[in-house]
């Protein structure tokens, strides 16, 4: 793999995937904040708190919706397009190891794999750095990998600068 080669369809590396993940977390934080604000607004509008003698309902609804968003967001995007918005921006896609779209079953396995990979101090994610296919544990469990979906190439000036430093 030469530095100036077109790396379209190659396994995506740790930093690109981390960037995509951070972007997705930002999207989720904004979404959860909006949902919480909306629920608080509706609760105040209909005076639900006084009716139930506390904010039990809003807490339950917020928790359920938050959980739903955290679970539903990746499942929805992985199954439908193979890309979450963060991955889309970074030019990445989840595919099966032979390059096909992932099914809902694989997506669910991959999500469970996230939890397993995070348990031993995120070792399952750092596995991406040493694996030949750049697969984390969640990828191994689901039989998936993440690839570049654009004519990927490194920034050679930046590359040399970092190497020099």
């Amino acid at each position, binding site marked *: *793999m*030469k*530095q100036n080669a077109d*790396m*379209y*369809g*190659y*396994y*995506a*590396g*740790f*930093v*690109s995937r981390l*960037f995509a993940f951070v972007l997705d977390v930002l999207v989720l934080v904004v979404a959860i904040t909006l949902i919480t604000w909306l629920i608080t607004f509706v609760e105040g509008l209909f005076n639900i708190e006084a009716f139930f003698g506390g904010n039990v309902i809003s807490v339950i609804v917020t928790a359920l919706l938050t959980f739903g968003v955290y679970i539903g967001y990746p499942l929805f995007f992985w199954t439908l397009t193979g890309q979450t918005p963060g991955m889309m*921006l*970074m*030019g990445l*896609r989840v*595919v099966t*190891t*032979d*390059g*096909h779209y992932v099914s809902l079953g694989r997506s669910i396995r991959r999500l469970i794999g996230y939890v397993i990979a995070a348990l031993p101090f995120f070792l399952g994610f750092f596995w991406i*750095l*040493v694996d*030949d*296919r750049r697969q984390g544990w969640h990828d191994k469990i689901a039989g998936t*990998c993440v*690839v*570049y*979906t*654009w*004519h*990927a*190439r*490194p*920034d050679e000036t*930046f*590359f040399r600068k*970092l*190497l020099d430093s």
Partner: protein
Amino acid sequence: MSENSELLRTLGEVEGQADEVPLGTTRRRASALRPLARLTLGSSLIALEAFTDWLRQLDKEPIEATPESRPVESVLIPADEWETTLEYEIRQQPRQVLLGFALDSQPRLRSAIGAILRQGDRVVGTVDRALNPVLSSRALSPIRGPFESLVERGQAQVNHWRELGRAEEARSRALTRDATQQLIDTSVNTVSSDPRAQEIVQVIIQQQSLGMLDEAVEEVRERTITGDMLLERPVRAILRRRPRESLSPPTEIRKNLPRPSAKGK
């Protein structure tokens, strides 16, 4: 044809406004060609002034040294060493001498012309003094009157042209200024009132914004890929894994993936 007549009519209107510049003569209806001539003259004068100003400004700015062209066989020699070689001297000398001569000859030429003119005045004065008794003699009195009358008419014509030129210069400048202003106003009005023009402007702005966003995203992607490679390299080396460069590419995945656009998105 209608567009031409419209243009001429507009110029006529603008010229009517520009006629407010005092000329000292009676206003008369100008032909269609007169405003065009004035517009051309005014544009040329303004453009010439702007060009001269730009040259003056450019002359004041510090000059950055640009690398000179070198023969192919010398490209392997470092620049410092190349400048000390005899071949470099031989290549540079004729050009530098010519440039120096061209720049130095300007003041010399000017002073030489001044000296020639001064000598000419002196010669004319001497000849005039010598011929004065002959020219003022009675023998030449029959032709002296018509000659002086001719000289006076010629001088009057020159004076008339000078006055006309002075007035026309001001008028041409005013005409060009007004025409430019009206052109700008009309263009702005067209863009602000015509929905199609607005649509075109919006599309251009959107395309430029999208282009800049695309470039920014691509830059981030390229840098993260660089990070991918740089972070992985030492980790794989420490764990004695084969370097990624020696691994075979995922041909099957590449075959099954849809091709991205040429721009890379």
